[in-house]
């Protein structure tokens, strides 16, 4: 085979693809080589010289992380000579290392410590004064740098340059005087800065939130999913004594988040540890919220909700589990007797929800995150991805910058991704339908008039890019379909684009971009007005927006689970006024939110860190979250609260385990067939290909 190379490492033969690095070939044979600067996701630079090996024919040792294999190459790793080189390299590194492991956050999980124990010198021969720097200097409010500990592997700088393309940090000076720095007056504000902390092979880059909070041996780790956006990055929740969360780390999942997290997700542990977490149910008595027992609170809540009957409403949450949202809609429909259930209070245009529901039910949205990098052209519509779904921003940057794929980016504002686009299509707000129709016409070769503010030649270029590709990823923001005027037309145009491309033998995958960690799941499990689990049509109900609009008239009681409309970005005043008109407002949340302050009954619930269940992300991958810490005070999981309320009302909600709820979902929702905790596994299960 011309594309394969056979070489010998430590006397063992191995055949690998051409271009493989020596270190990767050795890894395949199970031969360990210590590294600092090398990382599978970064370009090799050979900065630290730790990975030296002996290759026959070369007079000097070679760095295995940046040397490619060659036919007939003979490599020696486990020889006294190589071991001596590793030891010497470590001795060099340690000359300037402060060795303050006892007070270093990395101590206990530090590659420098580990490699030194394994291959390093037993003692130090260095008798002089070590380098000194100020300890630690803040690079931003989140990232601190201890320059004494830095071993100049440049992983941090390379990550910011190669992966995030936000080169906020750089290497100052040359040679012995090298150090990492920020540009004057410009803090390290990349929204992926936290990854450099995880990449740093020593304790030089530190998280200001985690610093001194725990040593690695005091930490318990729990596999979970980031609840902050629709990507659903795989995380590890690190906690101490099952009592409080100390940090989130990225968990490698090459189909979702690779090795990375964004800063919004990584540094968002404070509400879990909030000292003001609700620990007891509250009931309004004489105008004041007062502590009550669970039974009392639930009885009051039930009475109020049932008195309203079909004039009651329930709003669940795109950040709560499938199980909680499923039970919530079942409870509202069967126990309270109302059709008014929704997962959001966003304003949606008439009929758009129905159109979206049937598109989802017919598996129009079948896109996979990992295929973004496989496709030749990416059409991104209506979302500032870098803000809405940060990790997808990294996937797109990888596709465009590293793999040379084309991005067609359509958004009214010049968002971050606009600079990678060819072309960038800036349509007018409110003219989403016109714009997508123009694009669809261009792709299908129908004549059209420019109405939406985008130049004709740009649209033509975009359609050329799409038509000349073999594989196209179409990503469309849910808001573009649901909130835009004539959002239904957007969907039609999309279907038109997809069909025209397919008729030209272009492979197309379409992805619905949702913002909540479980928006997709909430819709799937029937927390939708007018749709039962699995998008089965039901009697019409009001949307969340309409419920708030009709509060005091058509709606007299509301149960809100895990949402805070009284702090909505755009409608705070209107929503607050609406909430005050209700006869009964039940709020289920973990802190006393602005909304909860107007409630008649407040039910303390668990955060995701205390909860077992599943989330379904924007590509419709179902993933598990697991409880890391103990419940706080008398708070309860959402599912337990609903089960208890239902049984108080005499309904038959018999679930002894969360998994039983999932089983019921998998029996009810066709796309979830056969889904169990085991079937989901640690890395989730993609549901788009299940009918």
């Amino acid at each position, binding site marked *: 085979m011309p594309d394969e190379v056979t070489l010998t490492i430590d006397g063992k033969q191995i055949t690998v693809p051409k271009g493989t690095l020596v270190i990767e070939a050795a890894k395949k044979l199970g031969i360990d080589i210590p590294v600092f600067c090398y990382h599978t996701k970064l370009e090799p630079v050979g900065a630290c010289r730790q990975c030296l090996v002996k290759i026959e024919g070369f007079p000097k040792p070679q760095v295995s992380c940046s040397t490619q294999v060659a036919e007939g190459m003979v490599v020696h790793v486990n020889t006294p000579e190589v071991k001596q080189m590793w030891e010497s390299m470590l001795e060099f590194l340690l000359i300037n290392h402060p060795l303050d492991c006892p*007070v270093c956050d990395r101590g206990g999980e530090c590659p420098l410590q580990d490699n030194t124990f394994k291959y390093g010198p037993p003692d130090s021969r260095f008798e002089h004064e070590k380098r000194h720097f100020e300890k630690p200097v803040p690079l931003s409010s989140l990232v601190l740098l201890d320059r004494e500990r830095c071993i100049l592997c440049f992983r941090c700088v390379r990550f910011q340059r190669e992966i995030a393309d936000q080169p906020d940090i750089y290497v100052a000076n040359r040679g012995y005087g090298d150090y990492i720095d920020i540009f004057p007056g410009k803090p390290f504000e990349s929204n992926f800065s936290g990854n450099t902390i995880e990449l740093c092979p020593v304790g030089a880059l530190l998280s200001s939130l985690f610093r001194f909070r725990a*040593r690695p041996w005091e930490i318990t780790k729990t596999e979970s999913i980031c609840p902050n956006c629709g990507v659903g990055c795989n995380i590890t929740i690190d906690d101490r004594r099952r009592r409080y969360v100390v940090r989130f780390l990225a968990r490698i999942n090459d189909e979702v988040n690779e090795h990375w997290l964004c800063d919004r997700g990584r540094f968002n542990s404070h509400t879990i540890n909030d000292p003001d977490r609700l620990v007891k149910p509250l009931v309004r008595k004489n105008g004041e919220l007062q502590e009550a027992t669970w039974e009392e609170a639930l009885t009051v809540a039930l009475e109020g909700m049932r008195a309203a009957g079909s004039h009651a409403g329930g709003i669940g949450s795109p950040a709560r589990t499938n199980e909680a949202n499923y039970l919530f809609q079942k409870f509202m429909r069967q126990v309270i007797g109302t059709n008014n259930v929704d997962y959001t209070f966003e304003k949606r245009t008439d009929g758009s929800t129905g159109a979206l529901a049937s598109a989802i039910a017919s598996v129009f949205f079948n896109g996979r995150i990992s295929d973004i990098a496989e496709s030749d052209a990416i059409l991104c519509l209506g979302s500032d991805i870098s803000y809405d779904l940060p990790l997808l921003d990294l996937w797109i940057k990888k596709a465009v910058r590293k793999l040379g794929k084309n991005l067609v980016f359509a958004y009214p504002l010049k968002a971050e991704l606009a600079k990678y686009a060819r072309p960038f299509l800036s349509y007018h707000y409110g003219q989403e339908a016109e714009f997508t129709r123009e694009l669809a016409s261009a792709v299908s070769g129908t004549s059209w008039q420019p109405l939406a503010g985008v130049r004709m030649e740009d649209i033509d270029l975009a359609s050329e890019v799409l038509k000349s590709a073999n594989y196209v990823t179409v990503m469309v923001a849910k808001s573009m379909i649901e909130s835009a005027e004539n959002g239904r037309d957007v969907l039609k145009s999309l279907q038109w684009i997809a069909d025209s491309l397919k008729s030209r033998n272009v492979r197309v995958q379409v992805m619905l971009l949702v913002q909540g960690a479980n928006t997709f799941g909430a819709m799937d499990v029937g927390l939708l007005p007018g749709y039962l689990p699995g998008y089965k049509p039901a009697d019409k109900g009001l949307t969340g927006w309409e419920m708030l609009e009709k509060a005091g008239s058509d709606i007299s009681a509301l149960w809100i689970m895990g949402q805070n409309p009284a702090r909505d970005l755009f409608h705070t005043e209107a929503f607050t006024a609406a909430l005050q008109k209700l006869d009964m407002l039940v709020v289920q949340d973990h802190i006393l939110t602005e909304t909860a302050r107007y409630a008649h009954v407040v039910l303390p619930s668990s955060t995701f860190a205390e909860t077992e269940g599943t989330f379904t992300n924007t590509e419709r991958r179902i993933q598990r979250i697991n409880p890391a810490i103990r419940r706080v005070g008398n708070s309860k999981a959402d599912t337990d609260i609903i089960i208890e309320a239902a049984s108080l009302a005499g309904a038959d909600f018999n679930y002894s385990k969360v998994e039983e709820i999932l089983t019921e979902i998998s029996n009810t929702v066709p796309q979830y067939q056969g889904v169990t905790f085991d079937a989901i596994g640690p890395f989730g299960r993609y549901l788009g290909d299940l009918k």
Partner: protein
Amino acid sequence: MIGELIKGLGVTIKHALTSKRVTIEYPEQKRTLGPRARWRHVLLRHEDGLERCIGCSLCAGACPARCILVEAAENREGARYSPGERYAKVYEINMLRCIFCGYCQDACPVEAIILRPIYEISEYTRDAEIYTKDMLLMPYPNPQTEDLGNTNA
């Protein structure tokens, strides 16, 4: 049978009258302990009064009984407890669980914790057996007892 009884009592009486007494009148009288006796822990200070402990939790990591809890914090301008960046904000030992093995003393990189021959550590409640940092830390400036101050452990 009576004869045997008398014979046995005789032995008892003989010992009672002739052997040396081994019990002492505690607490009026106290036993001298062996030179390597180690009981209650003490957290030491530097000469200038700063705490030696840097809150590194290595003792807690070494402790086989898992009875030490350390929560660290940063020394700040105007609130300096120890030299360097880090100090122990919380330091607790559950004396009921401690087996007085001395591993903590062994693990400490800055010789901050030592076990002293102070064995009077009985209490009436379990909670009182959780020794907190202010109970463990050597008083400053005047160490009350010689035992606490002696660092040649």
